[in-house]
């Protein structure tokens, strides 16, 4: 069982950071919505508030780690230009997709949208975390603050969903490959 360094980093970007960030939305949206209902029984305790703060900060870190690793580590491998004379495009995913009309829109629509829209998520989530941490229990008091917090959290979720879904499809049709091989386990035969 072996994996290449590029495969490993791509998995870390997509599954380690991106998917974990996506999964965390269920908890964050549920908690923010529960708080926004505004009943006295829904008020978080001091400990609950601290946990929510830690949770949101972890989400912000994951969001930034996802887009930064994607744009500055994985994307350069994806868009690498093959040397002249190369006919096998397997190691050049962008060129591989663009080489056929059946796959070119995965790049022209999928990657072009994913590479930009994904950046809305960390910007939005940073605001959500900042406002929630700064106002603590009071974040639910004025309707306009909780509307903005919930609205931007949902927008971050949608942006992450678009980027994640296209990321999965792109990795299916034109995976990022190459780099040195890491042997994880040796089989008997």
């Amino acid at each position: 069982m072996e994996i290449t360094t590029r495969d490993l980093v791509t998995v870390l970007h997509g599954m380690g950071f991106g998917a974990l960030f996506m999964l965390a939305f269920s908890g964050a949206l549920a908690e923010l919505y529960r708080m926004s209902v505004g009943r006295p029984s829904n008020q978080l305790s001091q400990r609950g508030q601290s946990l929510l703060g830690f949770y949101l900060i972890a989400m912000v870190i994951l969001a930034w780690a996802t887009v930064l690793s994607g744009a500055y580590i994985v994307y350069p491998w994806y868009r690498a230009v093959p040397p002249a004379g190369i006919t096998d495009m397997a190691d050049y995913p962008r060129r591989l997709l663009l080489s056929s009309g059946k796959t070119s829109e995965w790049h022209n629509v999928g990657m072009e949208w994913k590479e930009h829209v994904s950046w809305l998520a960390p910007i939005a989530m940073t605001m959500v975390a900042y406002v929630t941490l700064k106002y603590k229990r009071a974040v639910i008091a004025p309707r306009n603050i909780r509307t903005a917090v919930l609205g931007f959290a949902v927008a971050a979720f949608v942006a992450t969903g678009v980027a994640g879904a296209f990321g999965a499809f792109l990795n299916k049709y034109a995976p990022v490959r190459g780099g040195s091989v890491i042997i994880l386990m040796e089989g008997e035969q």
Partner: protein
Amino acid sequence: MSMSQSGSGSGSEFDIPNGPAAAAILAAGIGCAAVGILAFAGDAFDAIGKMLNFYNPTGTLSGVTIVAIIIWLVSWFGLGRAWHTQTVQLARINVAAFALLIVGFLLTFPPFMDLLQGK
């Protein structure tokens, strides 16, 4: 509408004016719109695309993201300084922030970019 007027608790967070929240919310909208506007400009105009190529392996995306983050942080800092002790009309700020967020989503969507460019 201020936090202290609306809040029923006794904690200090209920006394914070809404200015810092408004600054963060509007700046987030500005940052999202900046991503969209820069992505569109880089796609529509070759000269801007080349200008935004700060880091060749990542291409235009490097300039789009770096400039958008700078715009977002500078606007957050500026608005935060201006509003840190103020209570502002948050309803209007929200409308502007959500409008800017929609601009961000639309201008990053390639078919919409193509439509604007008449492709």
